[in-house]
């Protein structure tokens, strides 16, 4: 849920390229999420403010409760939230948890998030990279469009293919289980 929220922030910052990287490493007790966009970015002043739930600036960027909720959940799990941003260049968000912490939120239905990011944002170059130990799954809007030509990402056959491709890919990351909880 947090991930989709962060991605929507990037879109509203005018990003045309977003990279979402998830790294799960149980052996090193580390669970990290990276989101990098080429949106409008934020200056140092704004960066200080975004984590305060009571300072919501809806002028250029609609960041309100979202980031403070994430910070709360990371600090509860011996992790942290780090945001680097340069105006006009983009923003990089890093969310780190201790993998085995009892309060770490589960990744949830990430395949459904990835699917809608790709299909519902055809003009956005979305790149998803998911690593679990030494297994990797990745998918990118640009790569799909290159192969599909003028066929829409929202064509029923394409939706079916993308859905299966993502579900299979992520299932294989976990050695056959649908998600980390199975």
């Amino acid at each position: 849920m947090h991930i989709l929220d962060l991605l929507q922030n990037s879109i509203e910052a005018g990003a045309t390229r977003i990279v979402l990287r998830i790294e799960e490493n149980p052996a090193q007790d580390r669970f990290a999420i990276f989101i990098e966009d080429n949106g409008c970015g934020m200056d140092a002043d704004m960066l200080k403010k975004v984590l305060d739930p009571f300072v919501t600036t809806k002028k250029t960027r609609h960041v309100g409760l979202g980031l403070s909720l994430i910070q709360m959940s990371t600090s509860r799990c011996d992790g942290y939230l780090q945001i680097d941003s340069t105006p006009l260049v983009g923003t990089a968000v890093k969310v780190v948890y201790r993998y085995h912490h009892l309060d770490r939120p589960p990744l949830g239905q990430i395949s459904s998030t990835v699917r809608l990011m790709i299909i519902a944002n055809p003009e956005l170059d979305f790149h998803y990279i998911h690593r679990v130990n030494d297994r990797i799954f990745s998918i990118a809007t640009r790569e799909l469009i290159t192969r599909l030509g003028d066929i829409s990402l929202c064509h029923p056959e394409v939706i079916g293919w993308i859905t299966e491709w993502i579900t299979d890919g992520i299932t294989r990351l976990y050695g056959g289980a649908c998600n980390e909880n199975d």
Partner: protein
Amino acid sequence: MKTIEDLKKLREKVQAQTDLRHATGTQIIVGMGTCGIAAGAREVMSALLDEIAKRKLQNVFVRQTGCIGLCEKEVLVDVVRPGEPRISYGNVTPKDVPVMIAEHVVNGRIIEALVVGKFTE
């Protein structure tokens, strides 16, 4: 198992089937700000994509948008059929989706009970 090369075959197959080219299609827009997501926008969006794939609907395009300031009525879904006013539906749940697709998107009948706004663009 699927391979990325399948997409090329799929492209050829779809191109062969598509003899009618419509310049515009029906747009379905889902509100996905923090409020929409919290209210279940992802599940509604998933239901929409599944229904389009299941009914093999061509020329229907699903898009996402941010918060439009009607947070209490989320999940908000707008349906825009070519040449018709933009219809906003509020408090949409995944179980409303099959009805919305069948009635409005396919047959052009607006579901008045769910409407929160109409806009002529």
